[in-house]
């Protein structure tokens, strides 16, 4: 199993009447609600949490890209990833991901991911989402019906930039580059493992299967509701004659809270769960799905969009728990639920939403520590037959550079090998 501690980085100060006074948390959210002085602390707290997860033995620390979004403060996840390469040492840096249709030219993604891979010593797991309609179309102005074609071209350019060993010309429809020759190249060869976040597009299933990429379903509605979607994916894996049904071909995001007892979980965490589902997911339905963004084939398959749905505010804690939106409770409760999730969905990659909504840092650390110590060890060996499957995870260098121990006592010392040499006069 691969457990990634994932942070959406929500803004924790949305007012109590946010829903009533604002039509959307995303795209046209009131910018006066953001306060950069508080934001300074928020970013640092969130980085602390990710770095703490590394010390507790999570396999990965995860981040993603959103724009103009009150629950996702990372327009550029690569900036967060760069920060994480220095104060984490073991965990994969899972950037899930860069919306490659938005970068102009997308060679930028090949370059930045290569930098992150080299900086982290080969700890990068790269993600290439098409991006939500809110981000891609309404914030970044991409034409909905052309987004997928542009995405496909960007993908081809990035993979070629990583894998070809000589400069080449790229004559695309959206990008024309006479000299593609990135410096640096990625450390992992032929390139870092790739995860594709998807929301039920049939075309995305095939894209993952054909390229040996892991399909990630980053849902907020929990594992019970995800069963049909992932069953569709696994059916397609078989239909398309993939060589195996390794659980690492799929990933799933799950909101989770751990406490000493089930009752304590409700007492400690319910307000933060409600904050997330009621305020953070308050997305104007008109932004959820620009016409042409989803393909006709996907619409015909009946996959509906997870945004712009009105039902969240009606859910009680019991509804959230019983409906599997969240997994919450004692370590034993959480462990049992996760066994159901992992077996039920056949997934090897879990993205844990352990920070939720407006959770304070200390409370999140409490929940995170309980998960790491009392839940995760019992879930480690769910897929013994696939222990050797390393196609979907990073392969770091055995010996990796560490940040120098700088401090008041630090003094640069010259060794004989680095002594400046006198150059003899001619």
């Amino acid at each position: 199993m691969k457990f990634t501690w994932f942070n959406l980085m929500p803004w924790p100060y949305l007012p109590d009447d946010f829903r009533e006074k604002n039509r959307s948390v995303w795209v046209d959210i009131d910018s006066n609600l953001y306060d950069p002085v508080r934001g300074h602390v928020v970013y640092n707290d969130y980085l602390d949490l990710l770095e703490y997860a590394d010390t507790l033995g999570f396999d990965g620390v995860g981040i993603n890209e959103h724009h103009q979004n009150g629950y996702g403060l990372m327009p550029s996840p690569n900036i967060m990833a760069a920060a994480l390469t220095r104060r984490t040492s073991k965990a994969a840096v899972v950037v899930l991901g860069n919306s490659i249709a938005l970068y102009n030219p997308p060679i930028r993604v090949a370059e930045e991911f290569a930098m992150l891979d080299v900086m982290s010593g080969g700890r990068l797991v790269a993600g290439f989402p098409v991006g939500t309609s809110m981000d891609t179309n309404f914030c970044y102005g991409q034409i909905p019906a052309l987004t997928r074609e542009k995405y496909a071209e960007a993908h081809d350019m990035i993979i070629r930039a990583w894998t070809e060993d000589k400069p080449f010309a790229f004559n695309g429809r959206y990008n024309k580059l006479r000299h593609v020759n990135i410096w640096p190249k990625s450390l992992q060869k032929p390139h870092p493992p790739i995860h594709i976040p998807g929301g039920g597009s049939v075309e995305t299933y095939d894209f993952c299967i054909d390229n040996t990429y892991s399909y990630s379903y980053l849902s907020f509605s929990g594992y019970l509701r995800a069963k049909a979607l992932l069953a569709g994916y696994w059916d397609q894996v078989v239909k398309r004659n993939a060589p195996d049904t390794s659980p690492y071909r799929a990933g799933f995001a799950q909101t989770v809270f751990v406490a000493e007892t089930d009752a304590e979980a409700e007492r400690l965490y319910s307000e933060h769960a409600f904050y997330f589902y009621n305020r953070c997911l308050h997305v104007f339905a008109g932004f959820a799905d620009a016409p042409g963004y989803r393909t006709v084939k996907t619409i015909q398959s009946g996959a509906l969009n997870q945004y712009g749905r009105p039902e969240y505010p009606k859910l009680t804690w019991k509804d959230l728990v019983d409906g599997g939106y969240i997994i919450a409770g004692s370590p034993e409760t959480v462990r049992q639920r996760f066994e159901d999730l992992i077996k039920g969905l056949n997934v090897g990659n879990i993205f844990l939403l352990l920070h939720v909504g407006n959770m304070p840092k200390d409370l999140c650390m409490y929940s995170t520590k309980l998960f790491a110590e009392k839940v995760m060890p019992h879930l480690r060996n769910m897929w013994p037959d696939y222990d050797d499957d390393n196609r979907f995870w990073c392969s770091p260098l055995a010996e990796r550079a560490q940040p120098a121990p700088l401090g008041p006592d630090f003094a640069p010392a010259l060794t004989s090998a680095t002594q400046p040499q006198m150059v003899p006069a001619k």
Partner: protein
Amino acid sequence: MIENKTVQTPKGMVEYLEGGTGPDLVFLHGTGGVTADSPFLKALATKYHVRAPFLPGYGESEDNPEIRDMLDVTLHTFDVLDALGVSKPILVGHSLGGMVAAEMAAVAPNDVDRLCLIAAAGLWIDTYPVPDMFSLLPRELPEYLFHDVAAGTALMTSNVSMSDPKFLIPFLVRNARQLGMAGKLLFPIPERGLKDRIHRIKARTVLVWGDSDRMFPAPYAQAFKAAIKGSELVSVPEAGHMVIVEQTPAVMAAIGRLG
């Protein structure tokens, strides 16, 4: 009697509506498309030989991923006229169709000599930003489209049942095909450089605008009038963006000025 027909073009099969006798008139539909029972088309057919081709993705017109931008659509529409054997018709376009008609007249000024632009898209004025039509919910649309919002709402919501999946999925598919195509020209801002080419138009031009157009409000009518030499503006009271529906006789009279 308006009939649905099809014709082959280099970019795929195109469905079109045909009816009436008289001078050749080609009508280019707006974002919502047009159907054979349109009272506006029926009115046109009393005086003209009307053809109304559908953009790719509308009706039975084939989707064509190779049609991506303004020039593609402009040239494709000329190909459609060729396929229909129509030369120098009275060219009438509403909204999105007006944008296409204006581009055709600007790109090939010697091939378009009579032009009627009704509530046309294609220009952008910073001080009068056009509503973000692609984020409007179905229930919000009538307010932007009609002078008489209650009547417009009744028109748009008859036979609509969004809670019924049997209705919803075909509705979403139709939206994805039609608005997906429209978005290639209109998303996120309905301006594709017409302002740099519009001076080339030589056609005798009549502009028709509803006084209550809340999609492309009155300053857009003035901007077209200022940009097209010798153009006439017919402002229609008690009409919104769907002036062709709300004041059909006034639009007919305006087109009549083109002879």
